[in-house]
């Protein structure tokens, strides 16, 4: 029913008087590019906390699990969904959870999309994922959707816990674009997350946890 529209619309645009494009846009220097690692961590932490996010900085795998155990206990999490991406793979969360009395499943434990969605929307209290990038520029996490990184884990449960390897913390978004979007096939979805889901639509009263998570925890892992 829409055949022929494309050429009609494009032809109208092409027939329009052509304008000389203005000069190339000036490039904007982001002072973040000059930051060293500690400055980046400090800025990332400040901006994350401004959005009520919580940062746990840990040295290694054991400390990461310790921090995770603390968050799960404090928030009373009995069931969680974990991703299987690189940043969390070596934590072997389902097996670890058994020892801690927390039932941790991954999307691969569900035979159908509907079962997985039911778990994400109704059963679990937390989603645990890795993060592919962190940006100190705005205190933002970047998750790349993939076979090992389902989209709903960082969205449907009321708590989101993300493990960010320190060497994935970058000053600006452009670092991600250079690595992910130049050549090759970009992921089906690239997600920026800055703090929990929020709104201020009723009487300008802000609160967290509108449709997505109400709380966001970041475990920043040095190795």
């Amino acid at each position, binding site marked *: 029913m829409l055949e022929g529209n494309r050429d009609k619309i494009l032809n109208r645009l092409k027939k329009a008087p052509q304008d000389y494009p203005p000069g190339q846009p000036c490039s*904007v220097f*982001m002072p973040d590019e000059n930051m060293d690692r500690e400055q980046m961590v400090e800025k990332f932490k400040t901006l994350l906390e401004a959005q009520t996010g919580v940062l746990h900085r840990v040295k290694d795998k054991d400390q990461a699990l310790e921090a995770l155990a603390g968050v799960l206990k404090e928030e009373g999490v009995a069931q969680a969904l974990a991703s299987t991406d690189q940043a969390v793979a070596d934590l072997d969360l389902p097996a670890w959870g058994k020892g801690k009395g927390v039932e941790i499943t991954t999307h691969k434990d569900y035979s159908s999309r509907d079962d997985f969605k039911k778990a994400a929307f109704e059963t679990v209290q937390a989603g645990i994922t890795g993060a592919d990038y962190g940006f100190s520029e705005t205190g933002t996490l970047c998750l790349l959707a993939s076979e090992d990184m389902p989209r709903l884990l960082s969205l449907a449960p009321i708590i989101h816990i993300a493990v960010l390897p320190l060497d994935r913390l970058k000053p600006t978004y452009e670092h991600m674009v250079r690595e992910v*979007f130049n050549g090759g*096939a970009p992921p089906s*979805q690239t997600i920026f997350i*800055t703090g929990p889901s929020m709104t201020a639509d009723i009487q300008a009263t802000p609160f967290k946890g509108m449709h997505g998570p109400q709380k966001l925890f970041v475990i920043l892992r040095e190795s």
Partner: protein
Amino acid sequence: MKIRTHEYMDIAREQLKEPNARAVLDFFPVILSAMRDAVYQSFEDPQAAIQACRDIRANAVARLPKLLEQFEEQAVRAGAKVVWAEDSAQANAYIVDLAQKLGARHAAKGKSMVTEETGLNQALEDVGIAAYETDLGEFIAQLLERPPFHIVGPALNVPTAEIRDIFLEKGVMEAPTEDPVELGRAARKYLRDRFHFLDIGVTGVNMAVAETGTIINVENEGNIRMCKSSPKVQVSIMTLEKVLPTMEEALMVLRNLPRSATGQLISAYVSMDTGPKKADEADGPEELHIIILDNGRSKVYADPAYRQALQCIRCGACLNFCPIYRKVGGYSYGWAYSGPMGQVLSPMLLGLDKTKDLYHSCTLCKHCQSVCPGGVEHPKILLTHRARNREKNPQFHGAGAPSSLEARYRAFALAASRPKVWNVMIRGARTALNQKKQGGMVKELFGKPEGWFASRDLPPMGRPTFNQWIKEYKKH
């Protein structure tokens, strides 16, 4: 949505007396504009960042047809289906058809100005498919059957008691509450099942990237991400000017959008789709449909004086800084787009004859233009609207000025171009005017304080006149 742009003056008069509108308008735009100014200080050179965004938009619009072709090619390569729609009816019909084929019980919509423009909800409801607005503000506005009050806060003016009543009436919640957070929680709970069991999710598009075929959505609540993660079919509808050349340029625009819109460094969520989900992914859409909608834009594009209106990025900064918007609020503009961007856009899309009061309701203070990250010169376009309306522009349906006004201007032109006539008339006018002086000022001319005198007084005219004075002066 019913188009009420021709009722501007009536709605504005009501809104000026409406206490809830007053309460919101007296503080919200002021705070938002202050937050915007403050958050721009995070750039080393804020003006350079705004200018970069303006240049990017201007460049993209100048190269529009080429970028659209490239975007389509790349999006298709990534696995998306791209279709082109001439108008609202075609775009709606495509979505309705898709939803019917899926046997969808309901559709959920992320906040999108363009589906407000096309009236998609009505089209879906006409065939018995419930359409849910999922942005909290849009959800409330939809239940109340009202247009958006503000582009980033569609229901900011609605008092909590009214939200409580409509939520109880429509079965959104059972126990009454007036607490904003509790009301939000009730909406979360109500919409959650709609997200969970969603067959088709509909979103708008903030930016489309030609180089990679990516579409980008910016939001705070997570409802758009829900519409792009849960259902098996995603439809994203974009007007044809949304395209940008590269990811780098899109990210520079992204740095400006939340800063200008909500005074945030970045919004809580930005999601960028390049094609549908891959086969081995657990969620995300199996089909991604992208509708490129014209709906009058190619006509705007072909017009050199109007083209720059397409550089708008829909941040709404112009609303917050507009002295008129701050008084009359969003309802007065009678359609999806309010404030200066509505005054610029609605006449182009609906016709100059149906939107007369919109483009006359401007003080030409240029504050909108000074803060616009798209580089739109709103006052210049509004003056063009006025001129074209008077010239009965056929393309944009200019109605011409009323004949009585034309006659008055002809008489004025006659007098003003003949010094002798002018001087006689001025002398007569001075006598008549100064006779009406009360307490040092002229407060009315024809018995009632109308027209000019509705809100202003005139000082009496001086004696001697300038001509008499200069004659005296030359004698010495």
